[in-house]
């Protein structure tokens, strides 16, 4: 029950945050690019919910929700997106090119899938030290074409590392449709070539995601090695907020909007006997307040000073 509501809250928080960014972008209040994960909320919430603080996640550009669910302060995340001094990188980079190691969130570079070898390194530490922690490494079906994915999965297989690879298959890499990216339907098929299991699941179905990822996480914690979970999903927005996504049809978008993850989950809650009108309104208020506060914090935060660009390069200066 508690959990049901927490999950709902998370779903709505992520959507509110993403939606707000989109709005702010169109108002010219965001200095850099915005890569919206609207429509993919079940995937990030379902996979990250329930992880321990010591577990690590490696989110990519569309996984803003993963930051929030893992425990990153929404205010710091918003400040990061606005390039403020209070942001996770202190204004050094923008959007999700920053992490919070204390929260178990690793900051990615822009180079898609380059995080996966690094995720293996974190998992290696867990294994070497006998710590029962796991690593979740996200990547798009587009990023799946990069060599680093292969090197990482192969190594994870050999070392039976506690890592769960999560492929967000939203059928497009920027404008490129899946058939131009790969000659197979399921990225999950590749796991067999690395000596572990691959599963496909409906990424818009919160329970399906929790079930698949949950089982993989448990396996990894028990020393059973890696798993690849492919979540089929869809991004409502263009590649970035600048992209009008003319490469796809309105019908296709409509079809996917009818599979909306939050809508599906609300249907479940209603079946469970909740007064959805009330719950929805109340949750809406709460998440709005959180995001309002994050925006206020971020916009009130100072910009970094120019010379701060020189700081943070080295731990031990020479």
């Amino acid at each position, binding site marked *: 029950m508690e959990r049901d509501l927490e999950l709902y809250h998370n779903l709505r928080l992520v959507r509110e945050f993403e939606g707000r960014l989109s709005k702010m972008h169109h108002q010219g209040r965001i200095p850099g690019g915005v890569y919206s994960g609207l429509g993919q909320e079940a995937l990030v919430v379902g996979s990250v919910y329930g992880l321990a603080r010591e577990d690590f996640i490696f989110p990519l550009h569309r996984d803003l929700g993963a930051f929030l669910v893992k425990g990153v302060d929404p205010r710091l995340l918003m400040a990061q997106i606005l390039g403020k001094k209070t942001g996770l990188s202190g204004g*050094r980079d923008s959007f999700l090119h920053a992490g919070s190691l204390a929260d178990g969130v690793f900051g990615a*570079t822009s180079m898609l899938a380059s995080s996966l070898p690094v995720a293996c390194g974190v998992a290696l530490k867990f294994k070497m030290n006998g710590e029962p922690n796991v690593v979740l490494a996200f990547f798009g079906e587009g990023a799946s074409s990069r060599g680093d994915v292969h090197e990482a999965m192969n190594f994870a297989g050999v070392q039976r590392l506690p890592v769960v690879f999560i492929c967000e298959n939203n059928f497009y890499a920027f404008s490129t449709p899946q058939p131009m990216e790969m000659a197979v339907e399921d990225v999950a098929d590749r796991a067999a070539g690395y000596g572990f299991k691959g599963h496909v699941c409906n990424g818009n179905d919160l329970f399906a995601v929790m079930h698949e990822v949950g089982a993989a996480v448990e396996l990894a914690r028990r020393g059973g090695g890696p798993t690849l979970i492919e979540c089929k999903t869809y991004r409502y927005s263009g590649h970035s907020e600048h992209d009008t996504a003319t490469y796809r049809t309105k019908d296709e978008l409509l079809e996917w909007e009818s599979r909306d993850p939050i809508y599906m989950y609300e249907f479940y809650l209603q079946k469970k006997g909740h007064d959805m009108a009330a719950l929805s309104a109340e949750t809406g208020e709460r998440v709005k307040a959180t995001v309002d506060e994050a925006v206020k914090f971020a916009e009130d935060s100072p910009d970094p000073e120019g010379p701060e660009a020189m700081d943070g390069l080295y731990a031990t200066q020479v």
Partner: protein
Amino acid sequence: METTYIKAINDALRIAMREDENVFLLGEDIGALGGAFKATEGLLDEFGSARVLDTPISESLIVGAAVGAAAVGLRPVAEMQFADFVSCGFDQVVNMAATLRYRHGGNAKCPMVVRCPSGSGVRGGLFHSQNPEAWFTRVPGLKVVAPATAFDAKGLLLSAIQDDDPVIYFEHKFLYRRVKEDVPEASYVVPIGKAALRMEGSDISFITYGSALYHCLDAAAELAKEGVTSEVLDLRTLLPLDRGAILATARKTGKVLIVHEDRLTGGIGGEVAAIIAEHAFEYLDAPVMRLGMRDTHNAFAGAMEEYILPSREKVLAAGRKLAGY
């Protein structure tokens, strides 16, 4: 015709593809989308998907496949979506492409171009602002060009495509739509390896390339009001360097300021300064000065980016100091 820098690139690609059916393009999202920056807009419609090939996100494959196609007679033009990502295909550029001819005993050609949208000033942050050119200027077998004007963007690209050696072509994102000038509609080439003297003078020399050219021209104009006349040398080609032009201006004015947007340490400016310090020493009336991006990463926040990048004001201040020697 008034043409933007990016349109000049688009025009060059179209002309090259019309002139030679062996020319083809490959890269991410270059087809229906026309590329992240629209450099290939309209080309899919005219030339079809076999010659405007959308690839998976595989930079090493993109460069490697270009090498293979080039070795058997095609003339591939590969696009990196951002220059920053060339680091993911690095081995293919520096080991595979650069040595192809050499390791085949001279009996091979590698007529390919890698287009790299590079540069800062667009709030791109650490991984969408890089100037990776100096990684490649130290690799024999490659040629490296970096046009600053729309005219050169077109002429150097046509040259690069016609060249039988691998050319890494750095196009500057900041200039894409900010530079607009008269560019001939027809086909023409700007020769690789030749710098362009953008301004003649006798007191000090600016040696520069890419976006920094404009800071230098602005500073030179300002200095002229103060009675200081400047030479402004636009390198255009970074490998091989036009040593003749570099030494000529250094010997003429005896005072050189090298300016680039690339980071100071390890930028091509060190090489240029070293050439001058060794081969024009007797002519120097002042220290060889350099101005580049500060030695840090491409920070995102506005004040940070401004702080670290060269600007008209910084160039002017340095130019004044140099003139005052």
